[in-house]
């Protein structure tokens, strides 16, 4: 199994490569990728440097161009595809049908992966992208149970990649407009969810309030830690109960499922977190490298080690982890 690690900038890329990533994925410094955050991502010179660093050490580089261009921005996406191809990346991770059509015609020899933002949750959807654009791998949304992952892996014409660790999207990626409903900007259109420019934090007599474009996402009393107000991870009121009505602020961690993921034929494990620090990338990459190596050697006796779990818990959002949808009762 390939270990695919996040590279939000050059130090993170090096951290991933140095700690055993099989591949790193990166984006350019604009809205053509789904981690469009200030201070993140690569300009042309840094990208070139990063690709050189990774290739010199036998690590592949994927470029994510995985948002959905509208007519006014089309040329920017086209340019990103051309840049990535010119730089000699190993694969492009795409979501938009138009961009895939362009890339597969202009760069027919280039390897294409279907991004998680492409929302393919079944083999027929994957067939469409395979037959029309020759995609060679699909990244599955984080909403499938292990049984469903197995089914898709069996029926899919191409190998599959799944998320192993990191921030958890409770909605099907590519099919969530909650962020643009509140702020005007969504992962699909802008490459960011609950963007920072719409966030405010206010100390009030009732506690610390977090807001997104003035909508109250949560209120934290004394002793409660306040996380980033991603809008689906706030506390809301439904029929008189106030609770995490959509999702708790937790991270996905599937380390203990590794032998099962291997057994169902998963081709690659993806680590989320291009927006996280190089220290996070180093830590998570190292643990997952060790785990995959052990699992491949002796899957029958594999069990997640306490020090791995401790290391991962430390860098998890909300310091809690979940098996997410892989564990059916989550749904």
């Amino acid at each position: 199994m390939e270990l695919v690690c996040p590279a939000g900038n050059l130090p993170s890329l090096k951290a991933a490569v140095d700690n055993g990533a099989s591949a790193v994925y990166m984006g350019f410094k604009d809205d053509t990728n789904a981690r469009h955050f200030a201070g993140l991502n690569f300009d042309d010179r840094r990208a070139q440097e990063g690709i050189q660093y990774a290739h010199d050490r036998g690590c592949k580089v994927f470029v994510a161009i995985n948002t959905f261009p509208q007519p006014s921005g089309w040329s920017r996406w086209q340019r990103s595809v051309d840049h990535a191809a010119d730089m000699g990346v190993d694969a492009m991770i795409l979501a938009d049908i138009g961009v895939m059509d362009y890339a597969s015609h202009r760069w027919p020899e280039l390897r294409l992966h279907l991004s998680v933002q492409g929302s393919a949750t079944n083999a027929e959807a994957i067939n469409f992208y395979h037959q029309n654009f020759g995609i060679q791998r699909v990244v599955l949304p984080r909403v499938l149970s292990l049984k469903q992952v197995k089914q898709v892996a069996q029926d899919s014409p191409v190998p599959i990649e799944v998320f192993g660790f990191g921030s958890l999207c409770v909605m099907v990626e590519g099919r969530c407009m909650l962020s643009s409903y509140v702020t005007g900007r969504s992962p699909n259109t802008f490459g960011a969810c609950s963007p920072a420019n719409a966030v405010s934090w206010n100390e009030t007599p009732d506690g610390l309030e977090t807001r997104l474009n003035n909508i109250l996402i949560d209120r934290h009393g004394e002793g409660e830690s306040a996380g980033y107000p991603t809008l689906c991870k706030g506390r809301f009121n439904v029929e008189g109960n106030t609770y995490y009505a959509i999702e708790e602020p937790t991270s996905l961690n599937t380390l203990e499922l590794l032998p099962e993921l291997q057994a169902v034929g998963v081709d690659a494990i993806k680590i989320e977190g291009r927006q996280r620090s190089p220290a996070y990338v180093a830590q998570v990459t190292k643990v997952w490298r060790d785990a995959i190596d052990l699992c491949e050697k002796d899957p029958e006796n594999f069990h997640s080690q306490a020090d791995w779990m401790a290391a991962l818990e430390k860098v998890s959002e909300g310091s809690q982890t979940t098996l997410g949808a892989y564990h059916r009762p989550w749904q």
Partner: protein
Amino acid sequence: MNNIQTNTKKPKLSLGPLLYYWPRDDVFKFYESIADTNVDIVYLGETVCSKRRLLRPDAWLQIAGLLKEAGKEVVLSTLTLLEAHSELSALRKICSNEDYMVEANDMSAVQLMAGKKAFSTGPAVNIYNSRTLEVLARSGMKRWVLPVELSRETLTEMHQKRPLGVETEVFVFGRLPLAFSARCFTARAHNLPKDDCQFRCLDYSDGLMLRTREDESFLVLNGIQTQSAKTQNLIRDMDDFIELEIDILRISPQSRNTEQIIQIFDDRLHGKIDNDEAEQAMQKFIMSGECDGYWRGEAGMDASAVSNP
């Protein structure tokens, strides 16, 4: 002022698929009353959750027959999130029917009909640019619905450059379908696992309200779907739609007054009432506020100044 000219081509009106889970008799009564309205096109079928089976496929076909007899164009709409084999086999049956056009809400449906049968796509198929429209038109797409988060500006260019023979449809009225998950939020609200949801959606004919901690109506939980609490209402923009020569305007069903809402759109399109009259007539049928921000390129929940005088 009534700017609508009587001699230009008017958009048709459509009724989108029923997004909620209603008792069987209520569904039949609803569509019997829809048969008497001036809506031109009706989308039928379950698009949200495969566990909602009070109406089997033959019951939907019975309703389709009734509406066809009343002169409506019927389109069979399909599931948005497909994971299980059973869901794909149900989809295959619908996609291979010979009597009605089918609305794809997932790329699996597109794939099953590509090159075999003309199809339309719903708002959950991500068509954000002209090149995507061209690819899907080559596969046999005859009609597309603009994704709800896109603006007038984007629509204008895409519609003007659309492939020959492709119709454009816009979601103009209703709570906005914003997100899909594998998790059922209605079951979660009742502390029930999805596999044993006890069909709680039946209790919420317009979805389950989610409020912020300062009691602002924010979102609506509808099983695995999340909607806006506010109703998107583009009744003021009919002159725009006529000028742009948009083919179809979609109204989304709600448990009450859908017939009257259709009538207001029809009256407005045919110049029987002006913007102010239409706006005023609509007010009493709108649940928990209205919005039109997406259409203007802003946050979807925003409402233009005109709507909040």
